[in-house]
């Protein structure tokens, strides 16, 4: 299987360990990740989608045409990119008028949207194309961790359009994927609450954003989470960088390490902290990493 690998912005430009882990992980799964050369920002739904729909759709469609030229479906590991690309693809496939309007813009750069590929989320590919059995086969070091799963908003919603889960009220895909690594996905209050960063709010009003992040962190901590696992680099950044901002603003001492699902699988496959670039995280991951592998190491030495 081959997929067009859409990088986006935050993963490759802030947390390259997520990209590295994904490349190794997908190698083990026999899925070839083909680079989408010259792809850009998805673009960010909160700013471009909110400012000018035509520009948003044109830039998103340009990215889609790169995958169309490659003849492959797109995979993205970011909920924001997923939302933008999926929504634009959907819109242009359904609406001939919109397609014509956007293609007029794209003709300026010698491109044409045809509507020949689909947009898939990383976690969706793991569940639907790889399957849980095969995923379990790549786990070398089962993790002993209590995980607070954070779905993020644009991963499953709007459910009618996305179709990964029937409802986003009590989904299971991310919890299932987490538990394959040996870790436990623990319940916590307001689990489906937004991280607070989306819709351009983080740059527009950081105080409101942090107030939401704080609520999530409180609920995660109260449930005894050893780490947070997400499927979106923007949520990832919000829980990592945002956690230090919450601590500064509210005088709290939250210290919950944050992993992208790809990094969690990387850990379970035995990748080290360097490969996962855990040093790019502001919240120290060492305690979680040590705890995660404690049981495995104990068994290994016996």
């Amino acid at each position, binding site marked *: 299987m081959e997929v067009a690998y859409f990088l986006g912005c935050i993963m490759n430009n802030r947390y390259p360990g997520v990209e590295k882990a994904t490349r190794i992980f997908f190698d083990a799964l026999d899925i070839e990740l083909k680079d989408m050369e010259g792809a850009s920002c998805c673009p960010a739904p909160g700013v471009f989608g909110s*400012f000018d729909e035509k*520009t948003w759709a044109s830039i998103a469609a340009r990215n889609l045409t790169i995958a169309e030229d490659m003849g492959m479906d797109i995979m993205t590991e970011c909920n924001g990119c997923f939302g933008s690309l999926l929504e634009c693809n959907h819109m242009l496939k359904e609406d001939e008028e919109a397609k014509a309007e956007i293609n007029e813009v794209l003709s300026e750069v010698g491109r044409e949207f045809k509507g020949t590929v689909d947009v898939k989320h990383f976690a969706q590919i793991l569940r639907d194309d790889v399957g849980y059995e095969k995923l379990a086969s790549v786990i070398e070091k089962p993790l002993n961790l209590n995980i607070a799963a954070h779905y993020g*908003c644009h991963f499953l919603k709007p459910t009618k359009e996305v179709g990964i889960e029937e409802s986003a009220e009590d989904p299971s895909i991310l919890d299932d994927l987490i538990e394959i690594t040996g870790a436990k996905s623990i319940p916590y209050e307001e689990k489906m609450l937004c991280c607070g960063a989306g819709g351009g*709010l983080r740059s527009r009003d950081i105080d409101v954003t942090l107030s939401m992040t704080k609520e999530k962190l409180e609920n995660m901590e109260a449930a005894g989470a050893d780490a947070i696992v997400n499927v979106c680099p923007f949520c990832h950044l919000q829980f990592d960088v945002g956690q230090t901002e919450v601590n500064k603003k509210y005088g709290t001492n939250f210290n919950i390490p944050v992993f992208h699902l790809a990094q969690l699988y990387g850990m379970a496959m035995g990748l080290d902290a360097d490969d996962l670039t855990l040093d790019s995280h502001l919240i120290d991951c060492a305690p979680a990493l040590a705890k995660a592998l404690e049981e495995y190491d104990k068994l290994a030495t016996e």
Partner: protein
Amino acid sequence: MIIQGVFSMSILDRLRSFFGMGDKEEENESEANNAKDDVNVTSSKKKLNDNIVSGTKTSESISKVESGSKDMPSKTAHSKNDADKKETVAKEETSTVDSKEEKKEKVTIPELAEEATEIAQERVNEVAEEEAEAKAEGSDLIDDEEDASLDEAEDDEIDDENTGENNKKSDTMTLLTDKELITSESLDKDFTAAFIDAGIETVKNCFQCGTCGGTCPSGRRTPYKVRQLVRKCLLGLKEDVISDDALWMCTTCYTCQERCPRSVIIVEIVKKARNIAAHAGYMAKPHKMTGLFVITTGHGVPINPVTKELRARVGLSELPPTTHMFPEALEEVQKICKTTGFDELIGFDETTGELKD
């Protein structure tokens, strides 16, 4: 006849009265009586409007009662099956709003008014309870300091509204003042049409139940009222919508849209309203900056030296194979932004590569 009704004031009023008498009310078994008082605080004419749109707390042209009242309930009930009829009703609404003569006519439908009042009282009471609950829930979630500052802000607003020249009370002996009245001049039908034209016909489905606001994480901690926003967009209160900072408090989390019992695509309404606001010049500098980054680098969050080093360390290309690595690809993005006028929209200065202001 002047159209009566208030957005912010009616909420504040209800909240204020609710909290002012709140303790008493919560303990009181016979909430209905209290609710009556509660409702009486607000405009009696507003109740008419509430009935028309199945319990909206917002205002509409009174003249609409005459032309639309018989159709409206059926519109609500059958709007999904009866698209044609809905269209007709919508046209009637528009034309009524247009007509100044009709606007001036007195309402002479006492029976309807009475019935409307009854239903509206119930509904407004429900709404008030919902809001108070939401508020109470919200204040648990934000800390005391923030809560206090929110209260302060609300007090300030109330003070502002109660001073000034146009502050004479309307002669229906409510607490409303003339300054708070919404007249048909405030309604911009082109604004409403923009949503319909953008394929967001579902904006008309809204029956103001408040599920959206009750579920909104931003609504719990900011003045953002998503139900109110949807109503204002349908009415055509353009300036009210686009000049309000609260419009930008939505994180596009979709919870409201997922739970909306009328399948209103609320997030699309928010984004469309933001598009119109942005084109009218309401753009925050940090948002323009993100736009600037995409024009100059192709990325909303561009690479930095630290990450370049990290990438190289783990065996990835120092620059990702994106617009960062391919200048000709970046040129395409720039050309697109020029073609759509995005560069001008954010005030991009090509010669300096910065924002103009």
